[in-house]
């Protein structure tokens, strides 16, 4: 019943899209109609999609297995929370969520842009409706969440247990808010460009959307990363896996856009950059959905899927790119003042330099992600690109990047000398000596690392001193930059000081290495509602005689019948102790991994700090 309502609401929603398109075209120059008629219509469209989404959630809660999506992804014994989160834990439901956010955002956009020009608002609405119609057709044609199956099965297939997790329950909605937010930026940039409306006021108004999308995207990636850390049991937080890269690429573009939009707002420069980045960001967000859902990416994250869907998104994606390039080449007025407006020492120049670095990082990730697909198509040779590729190509270039990031904020707009030269030099000497001290004491072998550490410290000290001295002035930027330096420091120290032991143990066994003694005390068995749990008790003694009790868990879910490992993590301010236990073919040996990961908490905290920079910027007047 709920499915039936949901399906019909979806069709009504699709029809309302056409009605909205029709009304906006005939009332293009009539200001009264927009606020009186069209805004209520977009609200109605949102309500239709919302009802449809609600219908799906209710089908999930009620375990209505006549619905194919519910049958494939749910089970009666699943806890209520995961029944609800299961709604978007699958392809069909997650697309419905995309659509829901799309319609919500355009409604909010129309409400929030009342002081903007009418044509601009209507044109943005039209571009947005093109995207919305595309998603409606995609959803109804290739991946309807409301397919009916008969005879009605008694029991569903269940949700993949690794997805039954609080962080992953909210990861897709948060990430999608970021992804879909870029669609508004895209439509708005296209419409502003066609109407030659790109101005300081426009920059100021779209900035809110840029920051909001960026905050959600960052948080979404953070959640996914935290989940991978404790659920996948590899003890890392980033694997350069294609599916992760796909979310990182729009993040690079969006971060660059944040900086460009500030230049546009202050100096009316970098117009082309802003436009191109707006288009790029949304295209990358769409490709993200395409690559993840089409099954083209050969990834550890890949779930079973269907090629027809991939083809549809690909065609849709190319039409959007084609449309935006067409508008770009025919409507965009180049900046005529380009030549004489950049002085070498100015804020905008350092931002421009880092734009190019960001684009370089983006291209590296793009090449690493797409090259295997490309090679497979042309030569059917199967390859994968490993983390060393990314490290080698990105890490050295972080040095000039960090320098521009440190010096840039100290410069003024238009043209400036370096004020406070002595301060800058003193801080640089402090950072350099600190890094030399660390490098010598820890015997880090690479020159590159020591230079990198020096520059990270440099950024760290400069941002910190600015944060303390200037207080509220430029608080957002200093917070974000300080967070970034802290983030890099945590990653570097994390990788240098990490320690791990991997071994296979039976109950009662003791493993002795140079640094630890691990004793497998016992294995306890417990029965839960939808899984059976085995909890191991390990006693770990280090060289100084301190002991630690670790209790990693192994779960065997009944539907689907899958084993998962729940890592046991002891977190404190400076270090994480991490243990997982894996089953090998029901043999008596268990596969054990014990890791000491310093500064893990700081990696998460520093990302939150970067996000808080964005939040401050969003809420200051």
């Amino acid at each position, binding site marked *: 019943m709920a499915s039936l309502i949901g399906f019909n609401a979806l069709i009504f929603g699709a029809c309302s899209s056409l009605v909205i398109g029709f009304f906006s075209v005939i009332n293009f120059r009539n200001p009264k109609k927009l606020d009186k008629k069209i805004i209520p219509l977009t609200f109605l469209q949102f309500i239709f999609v919302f009802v449809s989404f609600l219908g799906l959630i209710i089908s999930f809660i009620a375990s209505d297995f006549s619905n194919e999506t519910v049958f494939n992804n749910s089970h009666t014994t699943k806890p209520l929370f995961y029944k609800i989160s299961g709604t978007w834990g699958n392809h069909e439901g997650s697309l419905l969520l995309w659509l829901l956010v799309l319609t919500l955002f355009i409604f909010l956009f129309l409400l929030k842009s009342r002081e903007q020009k009418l044509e601009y608002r209507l044109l943005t609405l039209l571009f947005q409706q093109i995207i919305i119609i595309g998603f409606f057709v995609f959803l109804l044609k290739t991946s309807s969440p409301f397919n009916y199956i008969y005879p009605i099965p008694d029991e569903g297939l269940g949700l*993949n247990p*690794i997805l039954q997790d609080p962080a992953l329950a909210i990861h897709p909605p948060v990430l999608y808010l970021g992804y879909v937010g870029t669609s508004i930026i895209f439509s708005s940039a296209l419409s502003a460009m066609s109407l030659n409306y790109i101005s300081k006021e426009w920059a100021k108004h779209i900035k809110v959307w840029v920051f909001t999308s960026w905050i959600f995207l960052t948080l979404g990636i953070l959640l996914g990363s935290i989940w991978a850390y404790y659920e*996948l*049991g*590899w003890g890392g937080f980033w694997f350069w896996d294609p599916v992760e890269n796909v979310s990182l690429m729009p993040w690079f573009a969006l971060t660059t856009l944040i900086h460009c939009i500030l230049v546009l707002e202050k100096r009316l420069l970098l117009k082309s950059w802003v436009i191109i980045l707006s288009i790029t960001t949304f295209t990358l967000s769409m490709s993200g959905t395409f690559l993840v859902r089409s*099954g083209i990416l*050969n990834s*550890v*994250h*890949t*779930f*079973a899927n269907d090629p027809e869907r991939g083809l549809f998104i690909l065609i849709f994606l190319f039409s959007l790119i084609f449309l935006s390039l067409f508008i770009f080449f025919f409507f965009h007025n180049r900046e005529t003042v380009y*030549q004489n407006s950049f002085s070498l020492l100015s804020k905008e120049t350092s931002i421009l330099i880092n734009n190019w670095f960001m684009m*370089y990082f983006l*291209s*590296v990730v793009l*090449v*690493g992600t797409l*090259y295997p697909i490309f090679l497979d198509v042309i030569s*059917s*040779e*199967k*390859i*994968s*690109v*490993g983390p*060393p*590729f990314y490290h*080698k*190509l990105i890490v050295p270039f972080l040095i000039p990047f960090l320098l521009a990031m440190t010096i840039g904020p100290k410069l003024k707009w238009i043209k400036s000398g370096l004020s406070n030269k002595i301060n800058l030099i003193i801080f640089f000497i402090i950072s350099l000596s600190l890094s030399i001290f660390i490098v010598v004491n820890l015997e880090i072998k690479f020159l590159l690392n020591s230079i990198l550490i020096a520059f990270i410290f440099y950024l760290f000290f400069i941002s910190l001193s600015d944060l303390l001295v200037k207080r509220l002035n430029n608080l957002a930027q200093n917070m974000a930059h300080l967070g970034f330096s802290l983030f890099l420091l945590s990653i570097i120290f994390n990788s240098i000081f990490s320690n791990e032991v*991997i*071994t*296979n*143990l039976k109950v009662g*066994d003791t*493993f002795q290495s140079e640094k630890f003694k691990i004793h497998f005390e016992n294995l306890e068995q417990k029965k839960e509602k939808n899984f059976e749990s085995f909890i191991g008790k390990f006693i770990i003694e280090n060289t100084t005689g301190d002991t630690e009790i670790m209790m990693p868990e*192994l779960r065997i879910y009944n539907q*689907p*019948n*899958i*084993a*998962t*490992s729940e890592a046991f993590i002891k977190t404190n301010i400076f270090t994480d102790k991490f243990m*997982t236990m*894996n*089953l*090998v*073919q029901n*043999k008596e*040996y268990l*596969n054990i*991994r014990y890791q000491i990961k310093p500064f893990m908490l700081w990696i998460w905290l520093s990302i939150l700090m970067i996000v808080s920079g964005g939040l401050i910027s969003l809420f200051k007047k």
Partner: protein
Amino acid sequence: MYGRKVKLRFFFVLSIFVILVLSIFLVLKSLEENVVYFKSPSEIKNSPEFQKNKLRVGGMVKKNSILINSDEINFIVTDFKNEINVIYTGVVPNLFEEGKGVVAEGYLKDRNFFIASKILAKHDENYMPPEVKAAMEGK
């Protein structure tokens, strides 16, 4: 002579061009060094030259082939035509089972022994890595 502005612009364009070429070269070079090829057991048996680089081997874990002791795990990867012994120390994903698909990453010791440093996890019991599928179909 050309004016200062024209000269400046010329150098600007030239330097951008040089940087572009350099970075493309850099990317391609490190791509070449860091790419890991995927092979099936048959491809390893039949290839004329011995692979020294890092490789991925994929296929089925042969029935009753897993041996485990406190130091290492041994098993046989098969594509039903040829097989290869894998010696592995490290973390095993939970979906690693006899009769199921597997992808191992590491180096060849000789044509019959493969020293793995990583076994790739899968997240879905019904999911078969595309390379393994292709290897099974004997492509």
